[in-house]
């Protein structure tokens, strides 16, 4: 299984029946492909809809019906459209249960940096800052390292997107939870050792007494 699919499949298991979920663009979007179909999950898209469905078949795109990346999507039955102020009222108001985002850096306090590399890349924060402070649960879904450099740090070196908001990190090497003591390693990917994951993680991992295979 490729790393992205492994991550997306594992994040999908975190979603519970009845959850309202916002998925970021890129890897997080893949999570929707692996959700247990017996669960009633409502996907929110910050450009103004609840009930985001899968991508349309080729030549069936409706360019009035797009996700936050501007790509054509479909709507599931019972879905609803609204304006951006309502959308961010939903987000900041605590009506989103889970948000899944990618990141450049995460640290052991649950701080996250994913919107700017000063002098190099200025994509902007989009809706990320609102989603991080507003969603009840924040899951970071990302590859464990970037060009072999750790992304899970003692302290983020890039400007924060939000402070102490991350609850869980899922990478191709394992699953981690942010606790008041630091980062708790709860699951390891098949074939990965504690040493393997610690070697590519700057923050010191606390090993769960109930460490499982991912």
């Amino acid at each position, binding site marked *: 299984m490729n790393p992205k699919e492994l991550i997306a499949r594992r994040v999908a298991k975190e979603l519970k029946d009845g959850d309202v979920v916002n998925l970021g663009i890129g890897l997080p979007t893949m999570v929707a492909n692996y959700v247990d179909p017996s669960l009633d999950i409502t996907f929110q898209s910050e450009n103004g809809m609840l009930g985001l469905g899968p991508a349309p078949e080729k030549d069936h795109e409706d360019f009035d019906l797009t996700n936050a990346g501007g790509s054509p999507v479909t709507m599931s039955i019972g879905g609803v459209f609204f304006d951006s102020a309502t959308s961010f009222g939903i987000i900041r108001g605590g009506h989103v249960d889970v948000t899944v985002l990618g990141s450049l850096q995460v640290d052991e306090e649950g701080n996250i940096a994913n919107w700017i590399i000063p002098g190099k890349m200025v994509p902007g924060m*989009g809706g990320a800052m609102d989603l991080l402070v507003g969603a009840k649960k924040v899951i970071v879904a990302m590859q464990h390292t970037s060009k072999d450099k750790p992304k899970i740090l003692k302290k983020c070196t890039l400007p924060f997107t939000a402070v102490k908001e991350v609850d869980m990190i899922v990478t191709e090497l394992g699953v981690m939870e942010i606790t008041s003591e630091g980062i708790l390693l709860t699951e390891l990917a098949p074939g990965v050792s504690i040493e393997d994951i610690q070697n590519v993680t700057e923050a010191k991992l606390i090993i769960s007494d109930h460490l499982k295979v991912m």
Partner: protein
Amino acid sequence: MKSKLISKADFVAMIPDGASIMVSGFMNVGTAEEIIDEMLKTDVRDLTIICNDAGFPGVGVGKLIDAGKVKKLIASHIGLNPVAGQKMTEQSMEVELIPQGTLVEQIRAGGAGLGGFLTPTGIGTIVEQGKPVMEVDGKKYIVEKSLKADFAFILGHIVDKKGNVIYSKTIRNFNPLMATAADHVVVLARNLVEIGDINPDMIVTPHIFIDYIIEGGKQ
């Protein structure tokens, strides 16, 4: 009743150098692009553009940026427009990045007569710098000011001749908010209908917010 219908050329002729313009749309979905195209035919410059994002090069507000007409861009992200990023880096265009939920609420507040609002978004980040922070019931909030503009460009799916507007799916995004927050609001009407043809329960933007109607924007 005075007609709100106007030609594209007559409308853009009213836009002076240095004007501030709210342009609705989300990655160009919901953008009244034909009005932007018309602006490219004029010499207007030094604009302040307020928009969710910078679109793509050669598309939507990206066209105004490419043409060097934008002095300042207020947006939540510019990541898919490398031209905007380059102009920001070389400082030929000022870019103010604002969290999306804050940006839309600033516009809503501007149109609703509020001076601003308190938001938890951005606490502890660069966004907080230079702004007052207030604590309410033990939680910190940034005080964000409201936002208004000289002009707003709206894209409507069904518009009656009085200016009542219905949108279509995700083209709605910033449109209903921006319609309330500018001195001169124009709607590009994909489908122009007679007054009374729209069920009043379905109208999203009431006609009093719309000053001008341009027919166009057909899909």
